[in-house]
């Protein structure tokens, strides 16, 4: 069920809305027909299930950025992941990231840089 995988209980209510937003934006990017058939939920894998491609992923990120504004930093988040992680990414993870980003001050949600 959507929402069950979320770690932050305070954001749970919020998360259902985020999932709906994400689903809408995925539909914009890859086409409504595909989304309605694919039954997007938190477990849906971007690559394995939706066969989303990198350009589509960027287009999705752009749509999210426009939708949520400065509260999230999609490119910076992706930059923290290995290629394998990106390939294995599920919709729920993205929703988690967005809800987490939106529920804490923007700076604190930034991933740490590679530099130590």
């Amino acid at each position, binding site marked *: 069920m959507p929402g069950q995988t979320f770690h932050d209980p305070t954001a749970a209510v919020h998360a259902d809305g985020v999932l709906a937003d994400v689903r809408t934006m995925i539909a914009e990017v890859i086409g409504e027909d*595909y989304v309605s058939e*694919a039954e997007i939920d938190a477990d849906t894998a971007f690559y394995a299930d939706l066969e989303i491609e990198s*350009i589509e992923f*960027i287009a999705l990120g752009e749509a999210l950025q426009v939708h949520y504004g400065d509260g999230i930093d999609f490119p910076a988040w992706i930059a923290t992941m290995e290629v394998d992680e990106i390939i294995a990414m599920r919709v729920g993870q993205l929703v988690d990231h967005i809800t987490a980003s939106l529920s804490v001050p923007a700076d604190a949600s930034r991933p740490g840089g590679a530099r130590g």
Partner: protein
Amino acid sequence: MTDSDATIAVIGLGCIYPGAVDVGTFWRNIESGIDAITSAPTDRIDPRYFAADTRNGVDRFACNRGGFVPSEALNFDPGRFGIMPVAVDGAEPDQLLALGTAAAAVDDAGGLDDVARDRVGVILGRGGYLTPGLVRLDQRVRTADQLVDTLRDLLPDVADDRLLEVKDAFTAQLGELRPESAIGLVPNLAASRIANRLDLGGPAYTMDAACASSLIAVDAAISELRSGRCDAVLAGGVHHCHDVTLWSVFSQLGALSRSGQIRPFARGADGILVAEGTGVLVLERLADAERLGHRIYATIAGTGVASDGRDATLMSPRVDGQVLALERAYRDAGIDPDSIGLIEGHGTATPAGDRAELETLRRVYGKSDDGVATEGRAVLGSVKSMIGHAMPAAGAAGLIKAILAVHHGVLPPTLHADEPNPDVAGTRFRLLDRAEPWADGSGRRRAGVNAFGFGGINAHIVIEQHGSDRSRASAPSIASTPTVVQPIAPPDPTGPPAPSEPSGRFRFDALLVQGRDAADVAEHLAAWRSDPHARAGSDPIGDGPVRLAVVDPTERRLDLAARLLEKGRPWRGRNDIWFEPSGLIADGGRVAFLLPGVEPTFDADVTDVAAWFGLNVATLPEGATELEAQGRGIFAVGRILHTALVELGVVPDDIAGHSLGEWTGVFTAELVPAADADRFLDDLEPGSLEVPGVVFAALGCGVDVASEVIADLDDVVVSHDNCPHQSVICGPADAISQAMVRLAGRKIFAQELPFRSGFHSPAFEPYLDIVRHHWDRMPLQPARIPLWSATTCSPYPADPDAVRRLAADHLVLPVRFRELVRAMHDDGVRAFVQLGVGSLVSFVDDTLRGEEQMSVSAHAAARSGMDQLARAATALWVQGVDIDLDRLRAPLAAGSPLRPARPDHGRAPSAPTVRLTLATPSIRLSTRTVGELDLRLGSDTDAAATRTTEAPEPAAAGHRRGVGSALQDEHDLLLSESLAAGRQVLDARAARPSRRATAPERQDAPGGAPVPADPPGTSTREVLRVDLDTFPWLIDHCFYRQADGWTDLSDRFPVLPMTTMVEMLGDAARRRQPGLVVTRIENIRAMRWLPASPAVEVTVTTRVVASGHVEASIDGYARATVRLAAATPPAPRPAARPLTAPRPSPVAPGPLYEDHWMFHGPTFQGVRTIDALGDDGVDGVIESLPTPGAFLDNAGQLYGWWVIATVDQDFLALPQSIDAIERFGAPPPIGALVTTTVRITEVTDRTVRADLELVWDGVVNVRIAGWVDRRFDSDEDLWLMLRQPEDHLLAAIGPSGVAVVAERWRDSASRELMARRYLTAAERTTYEGLNPRAQRLWLLGRIAAKDAVRHALWDEGHGPLFPAELTLRDDGPGAVIAHGGAADGRRVALATTEWLGVARLTTAGGAISVTTVDPAPGGLDRARDRATDLLTIRGADVPATTVRTELIGPEPHSTTTRPSGADLRPNAPDDRKDHLVAWTDLPRSDRGRAR
């Protein structure tokens, strides 16, 4: 002789002239009054000759206009005539143009198949002018020596060998000299080649009668025909010489039109314009022509030739001689001159020439008859008004014009004679400004043609309409003969062609359903699912135009398919399902093939596809990451997929490429004949075109945002507009980093790409000439399939030259892929098929989101080649393409011959051509060559002068440790002297801006006087030569140690330290701001190595931003911002934090240098103590050395030592950038001991960052913040090879003495590191001459062989031996002979695979081979067979019993230390397989017996 024996028929015509590539165009131009005069193309005549400076008219011309043949005329098809393309280079171009024109004339005459070839002659007028081939030969043979003589006179001190280098550099610009070239310049070959190539046995010669040549050639031809010695003759003139010497002749005579217009018979005519061209007529006796039924344009009734005799002068033609020629012609013809309707005058448009000719006309044809109305008069004209004066070929132009006028019944116009020469009125002729019909009411049409040559040689020919024109249709042109169909499969360079085994794994498994509509399809689907027996086979189920395909039909997919059929909407590919209610292609959409360019990763593998379709395929380089390997890879993959798709029934309607893919497109569209495609790749070596210093970054945004982000960044451009969500920018690394920071701020994805080709940016411009050169030599033919350009977003042009231009220029112009896709879609393309790996499908989808289109890749790295190919075919089947499903079900039957892979689209191919070069460009040496030659006139030579002056500072030797030997002292003394002198040279050079300084130019006041500071905004450029004369101490800053006494310094790679460059930048800034001292140098970046051997000239640029603020750079190498003030700030107290976990250094300063942990020599050895090493830094003491830059370099050595001693791998670290260097007080005196602390602030994969404090006299003297060292790929093996190569091997030595070396450098930079370690300068030259793929293998072989020899010598007790001390010379295939000391004469057999080199000492006749072992059962046996075969190929004709083998595991790597060493783990990729080495030592002489 009968009358018709004396009358000659013109049965064929061929020509090229300005504005015309053939007779048809020539005549249309004449009829329409086209002015074909143009300005001289700059590649034909250097514009300098048209400079306003008109000193004397000898070498500067007042007019730059003339008649030039169209560039299409220079496309020559050597294949048609059986000429080797290489021979084309050496031939005088006019010979080939004459050959082509003659062949066209023969074609026009119907082929002459009914005439005995041995009775056909060739007589061509051709002058002895300085034609392009001769000019090139003259430059090589005479001018080069003249140049050296002049230089020797000017620069008597320059050694002869330097001057010979100048000569070599000069002649090198002329290209390769081929032995066969010389014969190509013999002038009579213009005629002889025709006889030779067309197999004609009559007389064939050239003759020269200046401007009358063509007509006299025809006169001679007529004699041959009338005498019966020939049955047909090709006659005419050839002239392709726009040499400045010829222009000079007319310029000096004042005969070259100053107005730039040639106006024969016009008032105010002021001279000729020079032209070129070739015209050939095929002549036959009229009786024969009629008997054979040849088409007859017109007949030649008579000819007349006369010389002026004693009265001849150049300047004033003599009327008497001309009149005599005309009278003889009419006598010969038996025709009344009154009956002439058209005179094609010689018409030079010089006042004297026209005056004489008009007087001749008046005398021969009579005065104007007032009784005849103007329009009834005969017509006078000259084709020179349209094309200029083509000298010996001019007569043929006039003759062809007159013949066609008679033939067509048209009186053609003459240009620019609106106001006729008043003398025209005295003749019975008029001039026409537009064409008129030629009424033939009064008998046959007749015309007379004049040609009068220099020196008083006059000719006239009378032409008559042929009464009964029984022309026949001309025979088919030879040009339409199909060329031989060539297979496009690339050859396998590593061995004999062998198709790989068809893979048994692929099975076409897709459910294909057809129906009337979606509901019908759904019914078929449901029925199929309910009937288990139906599941076998993959024939389409049902019938109808609506199609569904499910690849690998799992239940889940079938459920999904059933659901989406209910909706009835298109479904294009997700979950391997395709459905189309109305096929895009079935509906009339077009299919386009997209060829990808370079990608960050290239892992295409189409071997199974090639096997399936029986195509021959070259092994693709494993793990190809280099541009070059990938260039070949994308090309090979594109061709194989293209062929496979066509075999399956997918024929593209359009082709487009992305970046380099456009070149693949050129080949798949067959703009270049398949047979020449490989040659192109072999020659080009795209990897060698890598542009240093520029970086690409892919951005997750469109071109608009990208442009905005980089708007103020210098030298950054948008190189690719891929789609709305991706663009690529290109520029210098630091500017790209800046852009990426901005993008991160805007939350836009940005990623630096791993390749640095600089393509599609101006950075590539310097390399473009090489590319253009290659394209100029490529034969081109019309495209079989339209190829779209991503530069113009439209199909490629038809004109071969425009194709060549676009194919080359697109590398410096942006890729407009988004617009291209849009344009193709607008034009009706509905299916896009990607032929290779890449993201083009995504780009299409993103660009055409929501539009009716489908895109699919025929290859995907994630699947096998056949799996993805089948998916693409299935997708296209759904769209209505008729796929040959049988071809997907079964591979090509075993044993089938290799198939020619070229698809035939039913379009007749036309002949490929080579571009002839008429240009004779001035020889210009490259800047680099000039720098290397470095000859200076005496007044400029400051280096030598300064070197002799006294060194002002005492030679400071106090820093040197006492080394006992006198030799060492002497060496030190020499070094310190040259050091002081060199330093002065540096100051003197830099203080005096060079003559090449750019505006605003400044001059320092003469020595001693106070110099004002440069005001803000001032820029100064100084040119500085970097070599070991100027920087002698760099001998102590060489990366590579070599044996003692090694003379070739370039083998040691002396490089300027970054700290020295920093010091130079500070000094340069200080000179712009006299009176101030440098307080701070910040934003320091080192961009690339600056080696001092061979010498290089660099530009030091300084720009004063404000008082005390100067931007300084060594252009292309390093830059920094320098802050200056009246005094340095007060020195702070030391503040470095204590070391964490301090411990003693494992190595003391002495061994640091003696054991080569540091490569530095004496003048750079300043680390005196290493007090403590900690987790976060190092403390030590350095001595202030006088060598420029050494002080800070020593601090850097201490820092570098921390990296070596502390970090596990990639510990070779070299300075890259420094945030800021602050100075307090005066520099410590030479010899001062300075306490130095290095504190590490960051360690990343690629870099180390540190802050440093240099403390002297109790206070901080220099503080350095943010010093970044770059870490280079280095493991213990490579490191040992760099440190102590004389005692170590890179190869592992097997139990049987086989040296095995694996390629562990994955990029070219690392490969270069080892190449420099192993190769001598001479070997590097050979190496650099190879294409990058060959370089890899060649290097592996050399390393293995050198290590095999070194190992053997060490076994025999030989001492240390550097790789460079051995030189290997080829001894047949797969073997070398070693030279150098004890190694002399030893023979080594060697072999390589893609990433492995093996070598073994052997005897004559011995050989070695290496091959991959297939892990599948039986793989080892097959490898043994193959290895033995390879030995046989290498000439070791051996029985199997003598072959010995050794298996090499997947990790063959280890470093062998002399005499023994640790076996270190390799870093070879995991997927590497076992290899089998096979060898035999059987001497050749034993072969027979052993059998």
